[in-house]
């Protein structure tokens, strides 16, 4: 077969067009989309979560906050611009802004809700961290590696729960008594609740749960259908903070 120059260019051009069309066809064919959504819910053996029973939470009691902050060397900085918090209280209507209305009853209006890091299933802080200093463990704990934190505060912007605090100043002068078993943080890093990861490693429950005398806090593995936390979730109606954002928060509230 004799091929002239014009014919060769035509065939070559068609070939290149075919190669270029491949990615376009991939997008339209939905193959990748199906793969991604299949991965979304994977089977795990352990998923740590917490239930906060606001009915049992006594107003004015700060046992859980004190225990956590003492144990983790959280500085007590009174200036709200610089403050650092791992577990704290906020009024019900501010904690659950999408539940707010004029006639909130049952004594909930203005009553304090215990807030902490939600250890989300789909944590936005992990997604934005440029150094992977924040990461999600297999058991669901959203952890921070302070060694890698560069203090960019992207995670603070991303977290819809205000669970992260930045160390604007050296925290050590603001710690009453330093617990030698846990490091402090340094100026220029972000910090947050770690679900007492260091206590769990020793087989202990989180300090806030242990310190609560009224059993307002329950901690456990929600993947275990026989666990105490699952029993509580079964027998009570629970809500979560800002579930519509799709972060999958794992702190459940009984109101």
């Amino acid at each position, binding site marked *: 077969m004799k091929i002239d120059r014009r014919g060769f260019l035509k065939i070559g051009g068609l070939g290149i067009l075919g190669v270029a069309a491949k990615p376009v066809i991939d997008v339209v064919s939905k193959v990748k989309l199906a793969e991604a959504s299949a991965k979304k819910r994977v089977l795990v053996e352990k998923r740590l979560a917490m239930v906060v029973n606001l009915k049992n939470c006594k107003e004015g009691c700060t046992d859980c906050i004190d225990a956590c902050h003492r144990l983790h060397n959280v500085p007590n900085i009174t200036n709200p611009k610089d403050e650092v918090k791992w577990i704290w209280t906020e009024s019900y209507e501010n904690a659950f802004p999408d539940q707010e209305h004029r006639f909130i009853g049952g004594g909930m209006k203005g009553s304090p809700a215990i807030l902490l890091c939600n250890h989300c299933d789909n944590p936005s802080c992990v997604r934005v961290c440029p150094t992977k200093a924040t990461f999600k463990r297999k058991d669901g704990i959203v952890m921070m590696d302070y*060694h890698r934190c560069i203090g960019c505060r992207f995670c603070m912007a991303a977290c819809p729960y205000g669970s992260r605090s930045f160390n604007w100043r050296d925290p050590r002068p603001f710690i009453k008594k330093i*617990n*030698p*078993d846990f*490091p402090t943080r*340094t100026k220029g890093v972000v910090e947050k609740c770690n679900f007492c*990861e260091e206590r769990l*490693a020793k087989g202990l429950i989180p300090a806030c749960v242990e310190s609560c005398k009224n059993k307002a806090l329950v901690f456990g593995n929600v993947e275990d259908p026989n666990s105490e936390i699952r029993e509580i979730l079964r027998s009570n109606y629970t809500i979560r903070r800002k579930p519509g954002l799709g972060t999958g928060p794992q702190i459940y509230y009984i109101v």
Partner: protein
Amino acid sequence: MNNRGMIIAGIIIFLCMITFPIWYNVVGGKAAYTPEFKIVSKEKQCVESTKYMRAKHMQLLNDWRNSVVRDGKRTYTALDGKKYDMSLSNTCLNCHSNKADFCDKCHNYVEVTPTCWNCHVVPEGNKL
């Protein structure tokens, strides 16, 4: 060269001045200064051999850090099979109770400033 004598004399003076620190120490008998280390420890044997620790303690500590923080594995098995809790404040400094002599003296000498102690707490009773 018109001022050969002056130039050569100048070069010699310049060389003498620039090498002053070297021959001053040689004449004074203080050549090759090294700091005196005081290794204080409760145990006879560190987690690994002294030679290894001297050369590689920074890598070992980095490995410990990554293992504890990122993988949640806190037990170190040494070459001789002994097990240790991977903790800078509790394992290392509990045994080496003289941070000032043990860590700082050498770090100052080689002019490195590790940032460990910005966050990690030096146990009480440890000489700062």
